[in-house]
């Protein structure tokens, strides 16, 4: 208990003192996770919608694949990404391993199935007749999609939150592909793990608290968008 209180004080000191290192680690964490969330939202929502609205051979197989993707452990994704990005790996020419871009790639791979799966089920929950009704009022296909997303905005934003939650809390893949390099690829989760193994429990707890505050802040913004128009 003393340790947690100590951690709270330490967190306060680090934040109030605008500790340059903590600030840059936090900023990088936000940059990386928001970028990964944005990319996986674009890919996941588009692909999830495509699967939800279309009939094609192997559809059930694809849905099963997406649902499996939602449960793949991040370390496995990290391992595969590392092997691909190695100097002598398939994508070695890009020289991306141990860069923030590598973390983004791994996190996109983790979050996309999540966003895709939830998008798929939320679009499927809207009756087919609703789509027809929107079209029957003269909507183009694009306008129909707009109304569809508007109608499914609660679960869709939940999908984005789930994607964001899975990447900001993720540590295994980030360490593997990012390498926890100081000032370069060190993010809050990997820094927390490192400080823990260094025995700097108070700093570790402080980093954990900052991580939770950031997570809460982003989710709060998303929830605001999600819950808009519910008050009346």
């Amino acid at each position, binding site marked *: 208990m003393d340790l947690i209180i100590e951690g709270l004080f330490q967190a306060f000191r680090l934040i109030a003192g605008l500790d340059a290192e903590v600030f840059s680690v936090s900023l990088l964490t936000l940059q990386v996770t928001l970028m990964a969330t944005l990319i996986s939202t674009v890919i996941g929502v588009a692909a999830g919608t495509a699967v939800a609205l279309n009939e094609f051979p192997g559809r059930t197989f694809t849905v099963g694949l997406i649902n499996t993707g939602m449960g793949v452990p991040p370390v496995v994704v990290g391992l595969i990404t590392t092997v691909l990005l190695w100097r002598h790996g398939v994508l070695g020419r890009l020289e991306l391993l141990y860069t923030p871009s590598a973390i983004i790639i791994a996190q996109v791979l983790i979050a996309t199935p999540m966003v895709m799966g939830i998008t798929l089920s939320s679009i499927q929950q809207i*009756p087919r007749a609703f789509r027809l009704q*929107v079209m*029957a*009022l*003269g909507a*183009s*296909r694009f306008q129909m999609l707009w*109304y569809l997303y508007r*109608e499914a905005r609660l679960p869709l934003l939940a999908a984005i939150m789930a994607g964001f939650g899975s990447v900001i809390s993720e540590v295994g893949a980030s360490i593997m592909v990012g390498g926890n390099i100081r000032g370069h690829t060190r993010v809050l989760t990997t820094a927390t793990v490192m400080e823990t193994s260094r025995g700097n429990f108070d700093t570790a707890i402080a980093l954990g608290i900052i991580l939770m505050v950031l997570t809460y802040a982003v989710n709060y913004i998303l929830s605001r968008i999600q819950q808009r128009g519910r008050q*009346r």
Partner: protein
Amino acid sequence: MTGGFVLRAEGLRVWNERNFRIDIDDLSVREGEVLGIIGHNGSGKTTLLLALAGLKKPDCGTLSFRGAPVDIHGPMTEYRSRLSMAFQEPLLLHATVFDNVAMGLRIRKMRGRELRSRVEEYCGLFNVGHLVKRQARTLSGGEARRVSLARAMAIRPDLLLLDEPFSSLDLPTRDALLNDFDGIAKKIGGTIILATHDRVEAMRLCTTLAVMNAGKIIQSGAPSEVINGPADEFVAAFVGVETIIEARVAEATSAGFFAEAGGVRIEVTGEAREGESVLLGIRPEQVVLSLSDNLCGTSLRNAFRGVITRTVNMGPHHRVTLDCGFPLVAYVAPHSKEELGLREGLEVTAAFKATAVHLVRKSAGK
């Protein structure tokens, strides 16, 4: 009242997922017409409406809109923007009533004051003006239907398609909505295609009826034509001819003919050859029941003694089935049933006019 064709469909065929098909040779709706597509559930009414609305690609056939052919293979966006459709379920957005009614208008890029006044106008017409700020999901069934109809009509479509818009509502709600809709439709005018399985609703609202069965239009025409001269036994049964007797023409006269069925002779106005097999339809409300067999001096040319086999309370009337050598159905008002003491097993006299018997062709394939 009838201008040119607003929409005409020819040779329209659709296969849907369950291999059910509609097969429409020629169906058209004229300016200002209210065309009722009537038929049982599953007869293909919804599929037909979806095909007409450009929401289900027909497998073959042509559509022409105000004389110009519609490209049924394209996205049909331009065609769809000219009409609107309301479904059996209200299918409202998770948004306010205002947003719902504004939906079609916003799709058409209407904004600002113009949008607001149009939405308010149609909400007012459908008596939901006081609900504009309510969330759609808090509405009652009847209110939701009103909003759905206001939404479809607010865009002032060239053609309005309605799929069972009044079904599965409780009776008073449905009556009030029917009344209001009737008034609005007459006031605004406009061309409407209405699919319904309720013949009373169809007779009340429509200027033309088209009876649909198993994907085909069996008969179309003015409501009185269809009701009084059903083209075959299916239409007859559907429009409310409860008694259909198979008979043989025994004797042709100048005024009509006598047909024999179950050992009795029925006088019919109309033309038939002697010896021909015919179907005779008798509407139950045109059958009069009495206890005595003294019906002389009336114009009721047909009178038969029969035994009541069954009475069913239908609410506004009793449905009485008799055996007069052939089965005959009559509707009797509750007070008459009391006065006459009608019950199962009682022998009574049933009478009807010669003109009340309709000569009905046999349904193809039956």
